[in-house]
């Protein structure tokens, strides 16, 4: 008899431990948290011999307590309690397991459910669900079935079960976050794939334009594009959306699509940027994002580029070891419609055997040996790589800033437009006036003589250039005006002379050699040109220029 009470206690103690162990295991391994709550609640209610039980979790967004599972005569799943409301609310706030012996005498007790259902709550046992001070909810048991009171042993048991249930809640939330993250990662990868597909395909080595894009993250806010036009010219663009990450990459995708679509019909890069700006201002001006962008059209025949720059890093022309930079004419796109007018300044650039580099600020703001690379650093890297073939050249520059396998701090994008023709023996851009012709003739003579011309052929070429410049001054501009002259010897040993001006297009029908039998002072120039050169032709002028005269003469 004296042994029986302790034995019963020890028996009950072991059964409690078994229940805690089983429930903890189930909470730790479950994939169906609500099912486990429901079953667990039933077992606890049975074990402690309670009439009803319920489990509440804190709703993170509202702070309310929401019933997730319940057993007993009244179904209260989905019931919401304001923060701190009722005995459950108090237990969650104070984070202490509590026994309420007489519910109706407790000021916190809300008799709402009882009033609605006729259920009579007499006593309550409630334990918090919390992990490391994070309040997650509570388990509540109501009324001992035998009409008695909950005792401290019941409270201890419920506290222990509450702790393992809380861990299960935390586990489940971490799990869900991980699954969400994996889904995001998969979606990001898909988005990155779509972005990569928007970049132009790799071009053959002898193509004049190549680009490289090395994103800092999965998706990029940088872009470049290259588009072969039907007339043999090539449209290109480079851009950088402010900010990084997904929103930047979406705006990049939009801008890139607009360029690809518009460049097929709009040859003037300034007008093109103006249209893209209007579109971005109208539909994508969310969150103060903007796009720096430079767009151009390259004419491989004349080796020239017409460039428009909206707030983008100044492109660099590298020509015989000398850099020239081309600053932005207008602010970035997407800020205000009137900031990028259709007649925005465009820059006409004769590459003259050189190479134009366009890049994003990922390059200038890259760190190289712990120092900001800067514009000077970019020039140094470009100079050092200058001797390499096109694609190797781009890779060499980018690899210096983000060695293979490492991630750059910002997206790195580099685009090059190279004049692939023979290097010119003379390339000058000058304001043509009667006064400058003497000096020009001497420079032309020196250049063609050193290219292997005999004295007579040299005199012919000098005369042709002089006469052509006179025509531009007198008939093209009706005064002085800018002229770009390039002379080169091609692989066949033929000297090619090209003259580009920006005067209104000449009427080809009016250009004819005069009849020599008609003795009069004017009109001899064109005749001289045709007489001394093998071939003289007005070609379609590069975009942005007025006239493009090409003359050739075999010198061997």
């Amino acid at each position, binding site marked *: 008899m004296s042994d029986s009470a302790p034995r019963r206690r020890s028996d009950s103690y072991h059964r409690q431990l078994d229940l805690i162990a089983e429930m903890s295991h189930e909470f730790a391994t479950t994939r169906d948290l609500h099912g486990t709550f429901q079953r667990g609640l039933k077992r606890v209610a049975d074990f402690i011999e309670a009439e009803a039980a319920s489990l509440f979790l804190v709703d993170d967004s509202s702070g309310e307590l929401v019933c997730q599972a319940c057993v007993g005569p009244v179904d209260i799943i989905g019931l919401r309690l304001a923060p701190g409301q009722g005995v459950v609310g108090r237990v969650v706030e104070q984070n202490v397991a509590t026994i309420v012996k007489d519910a109706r005498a407790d000021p916190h007790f809300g008799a709402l459910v009882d009033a609605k259902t006729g259920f009579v709550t007499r006593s309550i046992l409630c334990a918090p669900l919390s992990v490391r001070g994070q309040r997650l909810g509570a388990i509540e048991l109501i009324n001992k079935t035998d009409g008695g009171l909950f005792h401290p042993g019941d409270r201890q048991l419920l506290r222990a079960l509450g702790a393992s249930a809380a861990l299960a809640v935390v586990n489940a939330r971490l799990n869900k976050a991980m699954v969400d993250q994996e889904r995001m990662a998969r979606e990001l990868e898909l988005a990155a794939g779509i972005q990569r597909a928007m970049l132009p395909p790799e071009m053959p080595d002898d193509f004049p334009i190549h680009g490289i894009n090395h994103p800092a993250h999965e998706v990029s806010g940088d872009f470049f594009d290259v588009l072969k036009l039907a007339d043999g010219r090539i449209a290109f663009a480079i851009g950088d959306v402010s900010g990084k990450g997904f929103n930047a990459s979406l705006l990049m995708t939009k801008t890139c699509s607009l360029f690809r679509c518009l460049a097929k019909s709009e040859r003037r890069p300034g007008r093109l940027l103006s249209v893209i700006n209007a579109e971005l201002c109208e539909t994508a001006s969310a969150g103060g994002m903007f796009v720096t962008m430079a767009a151009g059209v390259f004419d491989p025949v004349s080796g020239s580029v017409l460039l428009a720059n909206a707030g983008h890093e100044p492109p660099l022309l590298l020509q015989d070891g000398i850099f020239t930079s081309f600053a932005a004419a207008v602010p970035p796109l997407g800020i205000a419609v009137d900031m990028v007018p259709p007649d925005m300044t465009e820059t006409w650039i004769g590459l003259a055997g050189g190479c134009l580099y366009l890049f994003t600020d990922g390059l200038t703001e890259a760190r190289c040996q712990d120092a900001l690379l800067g514009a000077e650093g970019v020039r140094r890297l470009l100079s050092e790589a200058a001797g390499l073939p096109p694609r190797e050249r781009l890779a060499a520059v980018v690899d210096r800033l983000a060695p293979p396998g490492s991630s750059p701090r910002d997206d790195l994008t580099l685009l090059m437009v190279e004049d692939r023709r023979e290097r010119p023996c003379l390339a000058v851009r000058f304001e043509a006036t009667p006064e400058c012709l003497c000096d020009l003739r001497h420079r032309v003579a020196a250049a063609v003589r050193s290219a292997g011309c005999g004295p007579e052929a040299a005199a012919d070429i000098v005369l042709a250039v002089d006469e052509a410049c*006179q025509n531009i001054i007198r008939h093209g501009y009706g005064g002085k005006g800018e002229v770009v002259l390039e002379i080169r010897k091609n692989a066949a040993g033929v000297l090619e002379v090209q003259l580009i001006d920006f005067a209104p297009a000449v009427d080809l029908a009016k250009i004819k050699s005069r009849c020599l039998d008609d003795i009069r002072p004017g009109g001899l120039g064109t005749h001289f040109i045709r007489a001394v050169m093998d071939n003289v032709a007005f070609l379609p002028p590069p975009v942005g220029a007025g006239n493009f005269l090409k003359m050739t003469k075999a010198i061997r």
Partner: protein
Amino acid sequence: MSANFSTRHVKGGVVVALQGEIDLQNSPELRKELLSWLAERRDVVVDLQGVAYIDSSGIASLVEAYQTARHQGGRFRLAAVSPAALRVLKLARLDEVFVIRETVEQALKGD
């Protein structure tokens, strides 16, 4: 640039000697010079010995002077044409139009 020609008076006319490069920059002055002497009914001989280069605008000045002289029955001759100048005259087939003499003295003589 200063004028690329110098003028000396001789019996019965003037000799205008051209020097160096005759182009768009200095041909208007040359034209004025030639026409002014013709307006005074002088016979004009243009000495082309020192011409290193002449372009269509220079040639045009000579043509205009030639036509003016012909119109008023005056005399306009070229003399001592340098190879560079002759090549350009030939390109325009004007070597057959102008009266050209080997030397200034021959050009000044009658016939």
